[in-house]
């Protein structure tokens, strides 16, 4: 190539062995550092996800003397003929369709309320966040008590309406059980997404608001044209996380209603645990898990697509 390649060429072998040694050492050290995490992720995440696919086509049981056999689509035909599965699916979608806009919207209202520069705003943030730190098991147990027919919620309703309205047995009535669980779930989780909205709000430059104010924009206009577009990335995150969490509804059901009354609160994950764990039918539960996985994947992909397209 060029005229003075001879000298570097003679030097290169020496340098290359040195860098090669260092490179190899670097690679080996890196591999050693990554191995514990990679092995654990393979054993406890990649393998079970693959198993969810594989076991769904077998007759595996949790404890069984005979090894699992391949049974083709039997679990799926059984699943699609199971009326409880359709109820679970319907209840899960019902829960998600109400919770996602309700929780995301309320969280945004809370975030706007505590984004103001007024005294004590930190106190309010802390209080709104308290239920998030409290475990869902405790929250479910507490609200089971509050929702009793003679419980606190009905006493408050009765007091506020001067005794004219007597509330129902919230969790015992198929018509009110799911709404009651929705209300409680939003109460518990809304603080989490308030903080995420708040973080998004704080990335919007203050100059944009000042400029809007100089142009004489009303608060609504400022929200519509500065705040809302500024929250685009946050919006996607909030919607996707609430949706996935909503589809995974389980703890509240397990503690509060056991799926009842009349299967009005059975959900997909609850049904999977009931058949897979309580009744030890691993393969059937794997089939439910697989359908659930595809459901979550499809919905979050659609959501990502829609929130991206709107811009």
């Amino acid at each position, binding site marked *: 190539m060029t005229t003075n390649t001879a000298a570097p060429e003679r030097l290169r072998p020496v340098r290359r062995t040195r860098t090669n040694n260092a*490179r190899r050492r*670097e*690679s080996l*050290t*890196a*591999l050693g*550092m*990554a191995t*514990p*995490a*990679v092995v*654990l*992720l393979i054993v*406890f*995440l990649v393998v*079970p*996800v693959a*198993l*969810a696919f594989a076991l769904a086509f077998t007759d*595996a049981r949790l404890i069984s003397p005979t090894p699992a056999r391949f049974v083709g689509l039997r679990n799926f035909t059984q699943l699609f003929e199971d009326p409880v599965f359709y109820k679970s699916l319907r209840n899960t979608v019902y829960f998600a369709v109400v919770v996602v806009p309700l929780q995301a919207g309320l969280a945004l209202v*809370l975030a706007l*309320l*505590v984004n*103001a520069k007024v005294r004590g705003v930190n*106190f309010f943030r*802390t*209080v*709104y*966040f308290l*239920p998030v730190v*409290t*475990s869902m*098991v*405790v929250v479910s*147990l507490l609200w089971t*008590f*509050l929702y009793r027919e003679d419980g*606190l919620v009905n*006493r408050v309703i009765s007091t506020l309406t001067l005794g004219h309205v007597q509330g129902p047995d919230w969790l015992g009535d198929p018509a009110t059980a799911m709404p009651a669980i929705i209300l409680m779930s939003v*109460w518990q989780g809304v*603080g989490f997404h308030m*903080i*995420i909205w708040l*973080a998004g709000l704080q990335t919007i430059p203050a100059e944009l608001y000042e400029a809007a104010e100089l142009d004489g924009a009303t608060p609504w206009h400022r929200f519509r044209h500065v705040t809302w577009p500024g929250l685009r990335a946050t919006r996607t*995150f909030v919607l996707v996380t609430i949706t*996935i969490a909503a*589809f*995974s509804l*389980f703890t509240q059901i*397990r503690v509060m209603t056991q799926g009842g009354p009349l299967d009005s609160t059975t959900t997909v*994950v609850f049904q*999977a*645990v009931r058949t*897979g*764990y309580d009744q030890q039918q691993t393969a059937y539960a*794997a089939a439910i*898990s697989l359908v659930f*996985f595809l459901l*979550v994947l499809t919905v*979050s992909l659609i959501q990502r697509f829609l929130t991206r397209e709107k811009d």
Partner: protein
Amino acid sequence: MTSLLKRISGHAGRIVLALVFALPLLFMLVSSLKTDDQIFGDLGSPRAFLPVGALSLDNYTAMFDRVPAARFLLNSVLISSITVVLGVIINSLAAFALSRMQWPGRRLVLTTVIATLIVPFETFALPLVWWVNQLPLLRVNGFHLEWTTGWMDTYQVQILPFAANAFSIFFFHQFFQSIPKELDEAAIMDGAGWFTIYRRIVMPLSGPAVATVAILTFLPAWNSYLWPLMVVQSEELRPVMVGISYFFQLNVGWGQIMAYSSMITVPILALFVAFQRSFVNSIASTGVKG
């Protein structure tokens, strides 16, 4: 005038909402100090939220008498803290290798880790139960060791599946990338090895990331329910959340249930109030980066 009005209405809204969020928890704490008769008697009035009447710690002592609550508490402390320590070490090491070192396969591993972020635990929890039941286990049987299979009913089945975490790796990775790489080069010039760089340079600079990962590992570990419900049968291995199911079988009074609920909630709430800033920042950073 209108701005004053707006400020007052904004504050009124904040106060009403604060009551909505705080009162149920206050009710739980206050009720844990009352007898069952008084809990029901106070329901119709604001007294339900006030520590008034004959208050005592009787519910707590009765609860400790009837339920192995101390054991449940110890198990949860043990399981959560080991998960946090292991999680911080294992995930930061992997993130260090992924963000600061050159090696073949680095991109592939990073992409795979990020891809697994979208898989909810619920979708593979049941196959995982079947799977851990097949894993080999070394058990102490009398005076000799023997190999068996099945991780059901152990401590490690409650810890190891959650030690490595894709989100923690991703979070450490993002943080480590903001630390100048020149530091590594200078250290290598001085003869430092990669592990020394990790331990003496990168980790000491990563306090906020460590705090975030620790909090985001601790909370779900302490609050976990679905997993221990399925893999733990014996009483002496139960964590606090599964310990609650004890009460369903025993038919104990609500005062004792409130006492148990308060006992497993108050430490976390106290931790939260004490470290409020880093808690909130750690949650906030999950969304901004996501």
